[in-house]
């Protein structure tokens, strides 16, 4: 199966209507754009319904389940069918349980000479088993020489990973949709534009988000909306061209609560972006132990 664009926790919160409206909306967009995400949400929907039927939801969740979840198209019908399915499967599971063979019951019915012979046979099997285990143990304690061979290459140090210099997030106010920002003295030589990108599974042919570059703009501050509910210590963002070539990388980014919701902010030099070209920003979450995992992709196209 393909990599999921949202995680279980975010999906459950989305379905129960627990997310802030902006994050809720982003998942709606994503679910419409990407059939795999839609199916993934439906599968989480099934789980929530099962938990509701079995009384496994907390009081708050149950309230949200009744108030929000069930108000959406198809959910009540799905609940009815799940209830029936569960009842039916419980019935099926009960039948073999009743018919299950009971060895103790059968043993009690046998005559005493048969019970005695069976006990003797069981004891004999037990003794043979113990002897066999002891033999294995005795053989296993003999030392076996360990040799280094040509099929065991020495550990090679991996080449150092090339990382471009870290770009600190700007202290600029968060607002979206390419609005020009008031200029600080340091920035008066070049203009900065703003844009908000949502995670998406779209490819170039599928009508991706468009970023427009005004003349004289030297930097594009991009807010990358986060829809995962998992918190990472830091994040990395990599700007790639259509072929997947790395153009720039930002490390040690931290999630901020901006007006558009939880997001990362990066400054992209516009010299890297060409009109009519397709780009992708790949965001990795970096856990406390240092492992990085891809959590979202933000494809976009630069319009004239």
């Amino acid at each position, binding site marked *: *199966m393909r990599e*999921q664009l949202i995680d*279980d926790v975010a999906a459950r919160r989305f379905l129960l*209507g627990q997310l802030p*409206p902006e994050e809720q*909306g982003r998942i*709606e*967009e994503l*679910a*419409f*754009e990407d*059939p795999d995400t*839609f*199916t*993934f949400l*439906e*599968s*989480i929907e*099934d*789980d929530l319904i*099962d938990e509701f039927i*079995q009384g*496994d939801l907390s009081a708050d969740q149950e309230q949200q389940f*009744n108030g*929000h979840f*069930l*108000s*959406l*198209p*198809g959910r*009540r*019908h*799905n609940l*009815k*069918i*799940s209830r*029936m*399915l*569960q009842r*039916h*499967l419980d019935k*099926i*599971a009960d039948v073999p349980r009743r018919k299950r063979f009971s060895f103790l019951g059968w043993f009690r019915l046998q005559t005493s000479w048969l019970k005695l012979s069976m006990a003797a046979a069981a004891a004999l099997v037990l003794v043979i088993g113990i002897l066999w285990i002891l033999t294995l143990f005795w053989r296993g304690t003999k030392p076996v020489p360990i040799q280094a061979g040509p099929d065991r290459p020495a550990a090679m140090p991996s080449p150092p990973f090339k990382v471009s210099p870290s770009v600190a997030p700007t202290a600029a106010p968060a607002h*979206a*949709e*390419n609005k020009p920002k008031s200029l600080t003295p340091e920035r008066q030589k070049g203009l900065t534009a703003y*844009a908000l990108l*949502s995670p998406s599974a779209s490819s170039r042919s*599928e*009508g*991706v*988000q*468009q*970023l*427009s570059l005004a003349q004289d703009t030297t930097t594009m501050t991009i807010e990358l909306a986060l829809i995962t509910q998992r918190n990472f210590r830091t994040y990395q963002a990599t700007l790639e061209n259509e072929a997947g070539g790395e153009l720039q990388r930002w490390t040690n980014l931290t999630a901020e609560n901006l007006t558009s919701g939880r997001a990362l902010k990066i400054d992209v030099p516009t010299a890297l972006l060409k009109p009519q070209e397709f780009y992708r920003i790949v965001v990795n979450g970096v856990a406390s132990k240092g492992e990085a995992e891809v959590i979202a992709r933000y494809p*976009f196209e630069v*319009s004239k």
Partner: protein
Amino acid sequence: MDLSPESFERLLNWLHPNREEAGREYQRIRALLTKHFQSHGCFLPDKLADATMDRGAEKLTPEKIRKWVGVGTKERYFYRVAYYILLEAKDKSLAETQMPDRFEAVDPEKVDLEPPSHCLEKCLQELAVDDRELIERYYRGEKAIKKQNRVELARDRNIDLPSLRVRAHRIRRGLRRCIDKCLQEAQE
């Protein structure tokens, strides 16, 4: 749903101040919606795209017009509307169901069907043996036992748990379709 002339006018003005450009933008967004509905395997994707454009236009308030500005944002507004149209389409009740919260109030008591158990039994029998076994094992047990059953089932099938969940969901979706058909036949 018929779109009022005022709503249509408001939509075009929002799409572009120039009428010709607005018309092109309308067609572009409609084409994107149609393609996405197609990718979800929807029947009559054109009709669903039209329903989305109409619903989106009706729900377009001055506040939303102020919020959804900038290049490439307008189709995203329609994607959010389209998500609900898609849910409705999947539920085969386009005219009856409505959108939640931010879009419209809903009547939670709608669609109250109790499928007769013979339909469920018949549909379970129609499943491929492998699928029937999977769904029976998937729903077996309660709480911790059910979880453990699923871990073992995923291991037996050599797939991970999320894939197992999606697989069970697809079987369940097939069952639901079969039950709906069975109910329709019972009514005729």
